[in-house]
C-alpha cells in the first residue's frame, strides 16, 4: 500500500468535537498521519481512534489520580524512531551479551549472537510476514480499561518490535536493553511467548540516551503456557528528563509460574502498569516492586492481578523509598472473579519516607466476587524505626551508617528473591548509588 494521508480518518473526526487537544495528543496524531499504511492498518487505526477518543489520562481518571501529565501533555513529541545515533549503541550501560532495541527497533547484529536452542527471536516485521494471525492475536486491543490506553497508542505507532518464543528451559538469562535515544517519543513493543513446560529469565532494561526530553511508551506482553516458568525483570534507568510509560501484560495458563520484578531507579516521570491474568488452575504470580524515589522523581506503579480461574495464587510485594522531593505511588489490586474459588492472594507494601518533602501514596485494593478465597493485604508507611536505629547506635555505629544499613536491609525482602544470574549484583550496585551514604554501604558489602 502506498503512503496515504489519514486526514479523513475516523480518528480525527472523533476528536473534532472533543475538548481542545493537548500538544502531545496532536503530536501523536501527527506521528500517526506520517506512518505508512501497512497490512495492520485497520487494526492500528482502530487503536488510534480509541486512544484519541479516550484522550490523555487526567487526575480525574481513578488510576491516574496521583499522576499529573500536564507537563507531558504540553510537550509536542516528534517520532524518535529511525534516527538512532551511533553513540546510543555504544552506551556503557550495555553489557554483552544483550539484545539492544533502539527507539523500538531491534538491533539485527545482536540477534544473531543470542540465538540458542529453544529460543526464537525475530522482529515483529518478520513475524508479520511469517505468521500474521499470531501477531494479530497479540495486537488486538488489550482492554478498554483506562490504564491500557497507552498500550493502544503503542499498537498504533510502534515501528517495529521483538517477538521471542521460548520452547525449552533456558539456562542463561536473556537480556534486552531498550535505548530511548534523543528527543522524541519511542514505542517499543516486545512479545514473549513461553511454550508449555519452558523456562526462562528475561531482563528488560530501559535506559535513555542524551539529555533531551524523551518519552518512551513501551509495551511488553508475556504469554506463559501450561507449566511454564518465567522470571521477568523490568528495570527503569532513564535519564533525569526522561518520561516513561510502560505497560506489561501477562497471561498465565494452568500451572504456570511467573516471577516479576519492577525496579525503578531512574527517570523523571515513570508510570508502570502490570496487568496479570491467572487464567487457569494452578497459575501463580509473584510480583515485586522496588521503587526508589530520588531527587524530584515521580514514580507511579500500578499492579493488577486478576484471578479468573480456581486454585490460583498471587503475591505482590512492594518496597518504596522516597527521598528529596520525590513522590512514589504504589497501586496494587487483586481481582477475584466469580467462580475463581480457592484463590489466594497476598499484598504487602511498605514505604519509607526519608525526607520532609517526599510523598508516598499507596492503594492496596481488593475486589472479590466469590466467597471461598483467602485474600489479605498489609501496607505501612513511615520512617526508620527509632528502636532499630537506637540498637545500631548502641553497638557503636554512627548515625549515618546505621541509617544506611537499615535502609538497605529494608529493601532486602525484594533483593533476596532475585536470582543471581539475572544480574542481582548490578541491580544492587545501581540501587546503592541512589541511597544516601552509598559509599559507606558499598564499603560494608
Amino acid at each position: 500500500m502506498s503512503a496515504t494521508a489519514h486526514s479523513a480518518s475516523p480518528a480525527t473526526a472523533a476528536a473534532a468535537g472533543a475538548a481542545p487537544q493537548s500538544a502531545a495528543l496532536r503530536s501523536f496524531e501527527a506521528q500517526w498521519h506520517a506512518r505508512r499504511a501497512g497490512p495492520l492498518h485497520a487494526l492500528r487505526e482502530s487503536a488510534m481512534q480509541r486512544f484519541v477518543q479516550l484522550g490523555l489520562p487526567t487526575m480525574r481518571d481513578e488510576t491516574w489520580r496521583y499522576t499529573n501529565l500536564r507537563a507531558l501533555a504540553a510537550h509536542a513529541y516528534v517520532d524518535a524512531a529511525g534516527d538512532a545515533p551511533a553513540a546510543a549503541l555504544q552506551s556503557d550501560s550495555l553489557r554483552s551479551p544483550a539484545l539492544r532495541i533502539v527507539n523500538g527497533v531491534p538491533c539485527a547484529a545482536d540477534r544473531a549472537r543470542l540465538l540458542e536452542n529453544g529460543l526464537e527471536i525475530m522482529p515483529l516485521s518478520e513475524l508479520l510476514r511469517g505468521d500474521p494471525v499470531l501477531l494479530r492475536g497479540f495486537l488486538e486491543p488489550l482492554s478498554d480499561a483506562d490504564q491500557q490506553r497507552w498500550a493502544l497508542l503503542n499498537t498504533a505507532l510502534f515501528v517495529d518490535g521483538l517477538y521471542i518464543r521460548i520452547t525449552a528451559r533456558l539456562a542463561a538469562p536473556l537480556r534486552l536493553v531498550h535505548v530511548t535515544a534523543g528527543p522524541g517519543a519511542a514505542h517499543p513493543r516486545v512479545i514473549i511467548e513461553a511454550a508449555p513446560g519452558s523456562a526462562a529469565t528475561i531482563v528488560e532494561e530501559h535506559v535513555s540516551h542524551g539529555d533531551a526530553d524523551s518519552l518512551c511508551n513501551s509495551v511488553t506482553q508475556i504469554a506463559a503456557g501450561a507449566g511454564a516458568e518465567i522470571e521477568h525483570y523490568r528495570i527503569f534507568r532513564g535519564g533525569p528528563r526522561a518520561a516513561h510509560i510502560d505497560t506489561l501484560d501477562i497471561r498465565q495458563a494452568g500451572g504456570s509460574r511467573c516471577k516479576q520484578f519492577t525496579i525503578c531507579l531512574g527517570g523523571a516521570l515513570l508510570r508502570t502498569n502490570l496487568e496479570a491474568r491467572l487464567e487457569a488452575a494452578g497459575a501463580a504470580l509473584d510480583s515485586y516492586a522496588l521503587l526508589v524515589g530520588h531527587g524530584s522523581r515521580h514514580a507511579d506503579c500500578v499492579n493488577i492481578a486478576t484471578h479468573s480461574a480456581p486454585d490460583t495464587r498471587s503475591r505482590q510485594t512492594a518496597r518504596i523509598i522516597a527521598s528529596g522531593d520525590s513522590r512514589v505511588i504504589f497501586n496494587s489490586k487483586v481481582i477475584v472473579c466469580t467462580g475463581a474459588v480457592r484463590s489466594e492472594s497476598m499484598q504487602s507494601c511498605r514505604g519509607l519516607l526519608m525526607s520532609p518533602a517526599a510523598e508516598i501514596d499507596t492503594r492496596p485494593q481488593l475486589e472479590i466476587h466469590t466467597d471461598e478465597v483467602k485474600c489479605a493485604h498489609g501496607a505501612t508507611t513511615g520512617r526508620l524505626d527509632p528502636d532499630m536505629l537506637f540498637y545500631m547506635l548502641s553497638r557503636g555505629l554512627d548515625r549515618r551508617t546505621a541509617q544506611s544499613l537499615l535502609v538497605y536491609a529494608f529493601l532486602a525482602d525484594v533483593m533476596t528473591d532475585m536470582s543471581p544470574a539475572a544480574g542481582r549484583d548490578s541491580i544492587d550496585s545501581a540501587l546503592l548509588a541512589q541511597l544516601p551514604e552509598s559509599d559507606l554501604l558499598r564499603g560494608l558489602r
Partner: protein
Amino acid sequence: MSSKPQDVEALIGRKYQHGFVTDIESDSLPPGLDEEVVRAISRKKQEPAFLLDWRLKAFRHWLTMREPQWAHVHYQRIDYQDISYYSAPRTPANAPKSLEEVDPKLLATYAKLGIPLHERARLAGVAVDAVFDSVSVATTFKDKLAKAGVIFCSFSDAVHHHPELVERYLGSVVPAADNFFAALNSAVFSDGSFVYVPAGVRCPMELSTYFRINAAKTGQFERTLIIAAEGASVSYLEGCTAPMRDENQLHAAVVELVALDDARIKYSTVQNWYPGDENGIGGIFNFVTKRGECRGRNSKISWTQVETGSAITWKYPSCVLRGDNSVGEFYSVAVTNNYQQADTGTKMIHIGRNTRSTIVSKGISAGHAENTYRGQVKILPSAEGARNFTQCDSLLMGAKCAAHTFPYMEVKNPTAVVEHEASTSKIGEDQLFYCLQRGISQEDAVNMIVSGFCKVVFKELPMEFAVEAQNLLSVSLEGAVG
C-alpha cells in the same frame, strides 16, 4: 440468640418488619426543583436572609456539578425533577409543646417500631428529638438539658432561636459546594437536629434522634449540626427505619460535627432503612455526607456505625484532625444482603501535630450484594508525629456476593506512621462444624460467628444500641446461609 430450632425457610420468607406507611396528611411541595422551590422551602420555614442566600448559592453551584460516578455502585439515574423536596406532617395549628399534643397516629407509628417514645425516653433516660419526615414533632427532656446549658433542638428552631450559632458553624465543616449530594442538601434541606454543648459541660444524657422517611416520593434532606465547645462532651445516637415502598427514595443528609479544644463528640448510627426486596426492587438510596472537624487541641471525634439497610449506601463519615493531639475514630459494621450495595468507609485528614486516628471496618456480604470499603488516610506535611491504624475485614457468605477494599494512603510527613491491614474470607467450615457438632443450629452458629466478627465495633456502641445492633444483624442476614 434463641436456642430453639428455627425454620430457615420461614425466616428467609420473612418480610421487612418495619415496612408500613402511616396515613397522615402531609403538606408537600409538588415534585421538581428550581430556584423557586428553594425559596419556597426557605419561606415556609420563615428563615432569615443569610440562610436563603446560602441555600441559593448552594443551589446555583449544584447546577454546575455532575453526579459522582466513582463509587462502586450501580443504580438507575435519579430524576431530580421527580422528587418532592418538602413534606411536613400537618399538625393541629401550632407545633406540639408536649407529648400529649403529638398526633396519636405518630405515636402509634413509633410503637409499631418498638420504640414507644415516652416509655423509651423515660426508661432509658434518653432525650428524643424524633424527626418524622422533615419537621420535628416532639422533643423531650428539654428542661434537663436546658439546666445544663445544652441546646438540643430541631434545626429550624435553632435557626430561629440561635441564628448566630447557625450562621457561624453551618457549612464550616461541609461547605455548601463540597460534593454533589452535599450541595443538593444545602439547597433544599428541610430540617434536622442541632446540638450545642457549651464550654466545660458534659452532656447529662445520651442524645438521640429517630429518623423516618414517610410520605411517598419525598426525598429526605436532613441537616445535623453538633458543636462541642471547649472541654465539652456529648454522645449522639442516630437510628433509622423506613416504611416499605417499591420506588427508590433518595436520602441525602449532611452531618457536621465541630469539636473545639479538649471537646469530645461520639456519634453512633444504626441504619436500617428499607433495603429493597429479595430481587433488589425498591429500597432507599442513602447518599450521606458526614464529617467532623477536631478544630481544637486534644479534641476527639468518634464515629460508630452499623449499616444494615438501604438499597445503596454511599457514606464516608470523616474526621479532619486540625487541632494538635486530636483523635479521630471510625468503627463500622456494614452488612449487605440480597441485591444491596454499600460503598462506605471514612476519611482521616491529619493536619495537626501528633494527631491519631483508628479505623476498624467490618464488611459482611451475602446473597448478590456488593460491599465496598473505601477509606482515605491523608497525612499533610504539617502533621508531625501523626499515627494511623486501619483494619478492614470482609466476610463473604455465598458465591455470588462481592467484597471490595479500596484504601487510599497519602503520606507527606516522614515522621508519620500509617498502617493498614485487610483480609477477606468466608466463614470457616471448621468454625461452623464445631458449632453444629455441639448442637447449635446452622442459623445460630452463623449469627454467633458473625457477632464475634463484629464484636470489636459493637463494643464501641452505647448500651442501648448494642442490643439493637446485634438483633438487626441477625435479621439482616436471615437466610444468607442455608
